[in-house]
C-alpha cells in the first residue's frame, strides 16, 4: 500500500521535463495520470528514484484536428476522450474504447499516453491504436520522432520508447466517409482489464468493397497485435457474413496466447475469434 521513497519534480514545460528525464533516464519515471504506475509503486513492483510529473506541463491535453488528422495529447484522460462529441462523430472507436476502460474514477484520471507507455498486455488502448494505424509522437532532448503503432508495442510492459523519451501525442488519420468502427471486450471479472479486446475500423470504397481494414487485438498475447490475416481477408471483400466469419477465424493465428485461471490460451484464442467477428459485424453495421 505504501510506495518506496522517491524524488519528485513537476516541471512546467516539456523541455524541462525532457531535460530531467535525459539526466535521470536510468531511474526516473514519467508520471501522467498515474493509474498504471502508482498501483505498481504501491505494491513496490516499481521503485523509481525520481518521478517526473508531467501533469503540469501545459499543452499536453487536447483533442484537435489538423489537416485530416486527429491529434490527441498524451495527457488527455480517458474520460475526455469518452465524452468528446467531436470524436464520437469522426472517430467513434476512440470514445468507445475509452468508455470500456476500468471504471469512472480510473477514466477521470488515467491518460491515453500513460496507458500506452505502460503497455499492459491487457490494456484497451493498444488495440484501438493499432486498428487506427496511429502514429505516436515521442519527444526527447534529442528532438522528436514518430513511431507507428505497429512498432510501438515491443513486449509485455515494453515499448519502443527509449529511456529518455516521452510520448507526447497520438496522431490518427481522420477516418474517411463510409467508415465503421467498434471495440468489443471481455472484461476480466476482477480487474476489468481485457481478457480479449478487439478494435476494428473498416472503410467501404465506392465500389462497395472494403477499402481499408484495421483490426487490433489486446489481452490475448504478451502484447497487443495487428490481426494482419483478418485485415487481409477483409480488404477488398464485400464484408458479407461469410467473409467476416472466415476473416475473424484468423484473429489468433500464429499468436502465443496467454493463459490464466480465468481463461486458458485455447479459450483466449477462441474468444479472440468470436469477438473479432462480433466487432467486425458491429463496425459494418455502423458504416
Amino acid at each position: 500500500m505504501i510506495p518506496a521513497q522517491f524524488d519528485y519534480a513537476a516541471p512546467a514545460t516539456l523541455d524541462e521535463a525532457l531535460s530531467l528525464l535525459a539526466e535521470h533516464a536510468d531511474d526516473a519515471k514519467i508520471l501522467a495520470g498515474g493509474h498504471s504506475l502508482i498501483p505498481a509503486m504501491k505494491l513496490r513492483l516499481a521503485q523509481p528514484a525520481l518521478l517526473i510529473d508531467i501533469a503540469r506541463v501545459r499543452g499536453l491535453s487536447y483533442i484537435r484536428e489538423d489537416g485530416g488528422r486527429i491529434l490527441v495529447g498524451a495527457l488527455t484522460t480517458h474520460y475526455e476522450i469518452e465524452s468528446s462529441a467531436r470524436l464520437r462523430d469522426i472517430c467513434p472507436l476512440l470514445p468507445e474504447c475509452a468508455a470500456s476502460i476500468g471504471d469512472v474514477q480510473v477514466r477521470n484520471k488515467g491518460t491515453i499516453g500513460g496507458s500506452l507507455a505502460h503497455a499492459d498486455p491487457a490494456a484497451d488502448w493498444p488495440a484501438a491504436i493499432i486498428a487506427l494505424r496511429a502514429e505516436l509522437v515521442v519527444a526527447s532532448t534529442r528532438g522528436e520522432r514518430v513511431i507507428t503503432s505497429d512498432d510501438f508495442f515491443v513486449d509485455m510492459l515494453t515499448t519502443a520508447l527509449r529511456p529518455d523519451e516521452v510520448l507526447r501525442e497520438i496522431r490518427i488519420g481522420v477516418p474517411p466517409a463510409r467508415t465503421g468502427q467498434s471495440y468489443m471486450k471481455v472484461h476480466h471479472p476482477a480487474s476489468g482489464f481485457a481478457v480479449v479486446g478487439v478494435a476494428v475500423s473498416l472503410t467501404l470504397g465506392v465500389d462497395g468493397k472494403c477499402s481499408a481494414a484495421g483490426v487490433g487485438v489486446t489481452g490475448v498475447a504478451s502484447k497487443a497485435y495487428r490481426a494482419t490475416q483478418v485485415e487481409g481477408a477483409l480488404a477488398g471483400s464485400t464484408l458479407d457474413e461469410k467473409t467476416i466469419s472466415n476473416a475473424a477465424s484468423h484473429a489468433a493465428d500464429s499468436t502465443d496466447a496467454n493463459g490464466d485461471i480465468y481463461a486458458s490460451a485455447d479459450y483466449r484464442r477462441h474468444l479472440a475469434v468470436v469477438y473479432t467477428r462480433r466487432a467486425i459485424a458491429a463496425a459494418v453495421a455502423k458504416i
Partner: protein
Amino acid sequence: MARYVGQRVKRTEDPRLIKGLAHYVDDIRLPDTLHVAFVRSIYAHARINGVDTDEALKAPGVVAVFTGKDVSEKIGPVPCAGNLPDLKVPDHRVLATDRVYFVGHPIAAVVATDAYSARDAAELVVVDYEELPAVVDPEEAARDGGPVIHEKFGSNVAYKLTAGEGDIAAAFASSDRVIKQRVTNQRLAPIAMEPRGVLARYFPGERELTLWSSTQIPHLMRTQVALMLAIPENKLRVITPEVGGGFGSKLNVYAEEALLGWISMQTAKPAKWIETRRENIQATIHGRGQVGEIEIGCREDGTLTGLRYNVVADLGAYHQLLTPAIPTLTGLMLSGCYKIPAIQINVTGVFTNKMATDAYRGAGRPEATYVVERALDLVADELNLDPVEVRRRNFPSPEEFPFKTATGLFYDSGNYEGALSKALENAGYEKLREEQKRARDEGRIVGIGVSTYVEICALGPSQAMPAGGWESATVRIEPTGTVTVMTGASPHGQGQETSFAQLAADELGVDLNDVTVVHGDTSIVQYGIGTFGSRATAVGGTAVFVAIERLKEKATKIAAHLLATDAANVAFNEGIFSLKAAKGKSAAAGDGTAAKDSDEVPEPMLPAGQDPAGALPEPAEGRTKVTIQDVALAAHLGRELPPDTEPGLSATYFFEPKNFTFPFGTHICVVEIERETGEIKFRRYVAVDDCGRVINPMLVDGQVQGGIVQSIGQALYEEVVYDEMGQLVTGTLMDYAVPRASMIPWMELDRTETPTDVNPLGVKGVGEAGTIGATPAIVNAVVDALSPFGVRHIDMPVRPEAVWRIINNSDE
C-alpha cells in the same frame, strides 16, 4: 403497540456513516501512536534459518523489530475453540519461529513512529528461508506418503469424524437408485470491505490495556487475549468501534490482536496495525474449502432413502478459532428440508500449507445446502422428474414440526411448501418452463434452477456452542427518560442499533430517537457472545425483549406506588401507566396515603432530556396516570419507591435459547448461456425467504440481497487459488473477483412468515439465508441449462470457459 416493529424504519446508525463521521479502528487517533508492519512469509512451506533485523533496526523511525524468538515464550498460542475427539492442534504462535506454513505467515513485526517508516523498514528485514515441499491439494494431504506439515502428528490428518443416524448401508441397499457425485466448495475469501485492524494502548500505571479491534466478538476476544498475554481479564478492555463488515472473518482471535497488545505493553505507547488487502487475502481466514462425494439414495417415485457425504475439509496450516468445527455444521445440515431416514457424514479434516479456513457467511451450512440441493437435482435428473416435484415429495408437512432429522436436530417450525409455492407463483414457474422449451427449440441455452433450503440460525443453545450460546442485554431508563440498551451482541452493519431500538421504543412506548443502543465495549456492556451465526436478533434481541419485560415489571410496581394502587390495577400502554378501573374512582383504591384523589389532568409528559432549568424535575403528585419517564425519575430520585424496591430503573437479562432456529425458503434463478463463449447471463432471480417474524423488513431485504450476491460470487466468480507451490495466485482484488454492481440481476424478493417458539419474539435470523439458499439455485440453473449437453454437474466457480468447453465438446 407496534409503532416501529414490522415497519421499514430508517436506520439510526446511518447519519454518521453517510457523512463520513463514523469511526472505524483506523479512524481513531491517539497521540504518539506507533505503527506496525509485518514481514510475512513469501513461501508456503519453509524452514527459517535466520531472521536478520539489523538493517531494519537502523532505519529511520524504527523503534523495535520483534521476531518469533522474542515473543514465543511471552505470548500464548492463538486459540482454537473447536473441541473434537482426537483433534490434532498445532502450536500456533503469533509469529513464526523455525518454520513458516503458509504464504502470509507473520515472521516479524516492525514497529516505527509512522506507517510509512514501518513499511520501509519491513523491506529491510532479511529472512533466510529454506523452501520445503508444500502440501496444497487437500485430497493429497489426506493420503499417506507425501510431505507432512506438522511432523509431530505423523500425518496431515487433523481429525476424522463420522456423524449421522440411521443405517446408511441398509438404506442404500434398499434404494431403487443410488446416485454419486463429486462436489467441491471452493475456498473463498470473505473480503470485508474494511480489512482487519487493531489499535492497542497500555497504561502502565493503571496496568490497563485497551484494544480497539475490528471484530465481531469483543468479549470473547477479551477473554482469549487476556489469556494469551497472561493479564487479568478485568484489566483488558476491548472496544469495537464501527466495523466495516465481517462475514465471519472477524469472528476470530488473530495473532495480531495479542501481538499489538503486547507491543503496546512493551513500548508503553499506543500501537496500531491496519491490515492491507494483500495481507487480508493471505492471512485473514478463508471460508469453505471442501471437496467430497455425495451419495443419495431414492425410490423410483423420488422418495429419498439415504444420504452420505464423504468430505475432505481443507483446514489450512493452523486452526483458527472455529476451523475444525465448521465441517461439523455441514454435517448437521445434510438433511436439508427433507425427510431422509439415514444420513452419514464422514469428514477428514486435513492440514495444508494455506491460511486457515473458518467461518465465512454461512459457515458450513452453504456447503451442506449446496451438496444436498445439487443431489436433489441429480435425483430429479435420474428419475426424469421435475426438480420441484422431487423436493415437494420429501418435505415434512407443517404439522410434522418440530421435525427431527437424522442428523440429530429438531427443526423448530416450517412451512416449506408455503415458501416454495409462493416462489413458484412469483416466478411464474410453469410459464418459465414453457419459455425454456421454446428457447431450446430456438437453439438458445436457458436454465432454471431451484433451491429449497433450510438453515440453522440463532446459534445457539450453550450445550452446542464452544463458548456460550446465550446473549445478554441491559436496558436502562435514565433519569431524564432516555433509554439505553446495552447488547452483548456486536453488530457490524446488520442494523441492530435500529431494530433493537424499534423493539425498545415499542415496548416502552418511547420515541425511537430516545433509545440508544450501545454495543462493542467490554467496559460498558455486560459480557456477551457476539454477532455471528444469524444470532444477534433472535438471541440478542430476545435478551433485550426480556430485559425490557423485567424492567417494565419493576416500573409497574413503582408506577402503582406513585398512583397509590396495586400493580395489578395498573395498565401500561404507549409509555403511560394508568389505572385499569373506571376513571376517577380507583385512584383511592389503595390506602390513600401516597396519592390524593384527583380528577386533574395529569401533568404533561416531560420530553426526554429536556429540562429548561437543567435541574431534575419533581414528580407530579396526585395522578391517575404517570409516564414511564416519571417512573424513571422517581426510580432515580429514590424518595417515592415502594418498600423493598431498589432505586434505579435497569434490568439485565441473559437469554439462553432452548434450541436453534431453522429459517428456510425457496430461491429460483433463471440463466441464459451464450453458446459461443459460455458466458452466463442472469434472466430472473426470485426468492421467498422465511425468517420468522420480521422487525424491520428493509433490513431483512438488505441481508437477503447481500447474501445472494455473495452466493453469486461463490457460484460464478470467487475462488482463492493457490498454485502447486502454495503461492497465492489470487492475492489481490485484481485476481480475486468480488461481484460488482454490473454483474448481478435484479432480485425479486418476497417472504412468508412462520414464527418460532424458540424465542418470544418469534424471530429466526436472516444474516446468512441468502448465502445459503442462492448458491445451489444458481448452479442448478446453469446445470439445467447445460443438461441437453449431457451435463449433470459442474464445479464452482462456474467460469465461462468451463461452460464453453462443455458446449464445444458436445454433439448435442
